């Protein structure tokens, strides 16, 4: 059977109510329309759609489970790829960049004790954390605004997690700073710098380098996303 405009709209609304992610929505919509072509015209369109969903996906629950499985499969793979990129900076040839960055940051952290320099290192770390956030937002804007149907993409969850984790680290750092100051009963704007005194320069360098590698890994991970062109 060939559905009319009203029936197609019914199907779109139905799937929008069940499915959360754009990729699965588009594939299932096309799948059901193809399956409908092989079915004879029936009195009730809704029951034909239900029958296809039951036969092919095991009903609405099966449809939702299929979507979750797609999301989990992608999340697992993106997670692996991110860490593969991250650890590649500890191996040749990328380790050359890591050593170079470590030397610059290390020199600043060990030899230069001026607050201005510390501030510039903090800006470096914040930039390294913010660039992935901006790329994530840019990707959503570039791909998302064109979408008809659900706006969420299967990779959104895992990429969101990757950009938010370093922020959580920064929040913990600030909380720790406050806690240290509070035990002394003093609180002032030097708060951020005071913690540096308690931390070994090696740990500081490790944090700076990790933030930088995180940024570079995320850029490598996401660059292909900007090549995606969803038509329609």
């Amino acid at each position: 059977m060939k559905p009319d405009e009203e029936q197609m709209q019914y199907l779109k609304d139905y799937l929008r109510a069940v499915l959360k992610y754009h990729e699965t929505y588009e594939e299932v919509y096309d799948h059901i329309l193809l399956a409908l072509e092989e079915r004879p015209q029936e009195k009730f369109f809704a029951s034909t759609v239900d029958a296809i969903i039951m036969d092919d996906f095991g009903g609405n629950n099966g449809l939702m489970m299929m979507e979750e499985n797609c999301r989990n499969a992608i999340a697992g793979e993106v997670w692996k790829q991110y860490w593969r990129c991250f650890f590649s900076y500890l191996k040749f040839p990328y380790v050359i960049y890591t050593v170079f960055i470590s030397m610059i940051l290390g020199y600043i952290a060990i030899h230069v004790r001026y607050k201005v320099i510390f501030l510039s290192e903090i800006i470096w770390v914040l930039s390294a954390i913010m660039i992935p956030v901006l790329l994530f937002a840019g990707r959503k804007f570039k791909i998302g605004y064109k979408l008809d149907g659900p706006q969420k993409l299967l990779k959104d969850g895992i990429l969101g997690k990757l950009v938010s984790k370093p922020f959580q680290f920064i929040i913990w750092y600030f909380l720790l700073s406050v806690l240290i100051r509070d035990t002394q009963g003093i609180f002032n704007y030097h708060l951020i710098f005071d913690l540096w005194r308690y931390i070994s320069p090696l740990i500081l360098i490790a944090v700076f380098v990790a933030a930088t590698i995180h940024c570079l890994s995320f850029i490598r991970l996401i660059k292909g996303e900007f090549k995606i062109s969803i038509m329609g």
Partner: protein
Amino acid sequence: MSSNPMLKGTLQTIILKLLEDNSQMYGYEIAQKVKEITTGDIVLTEGALYPALHKLEAEGLLETFTEIVDNRVRKYYRITEQGGKEVTDKLNEARLFVNQLQLLLNLKPNTI
């Protein structure tokens, strides 16, 4: 996984082999092709097919492109260079497994 539980674990091999032979296919077409080749004896459930396709795509073994067909988006999958190498390995693994199974269960191909 599919209507035949013995196929569990070979879904990726089936998908990669089909895409190696057919250059580009969409999800529904893959399911129909399996049904057609096996004259309906093996039915891939879509609940397993689509997650497997997305996983293979994320692994870089498949790539996708979309086309507008009858005012809707159709997502096609095709094998990448890396996927081409992987299919050879997976087919060798499958061949070895079938041979071992024949030895273990004392099966003769012409009697199945």
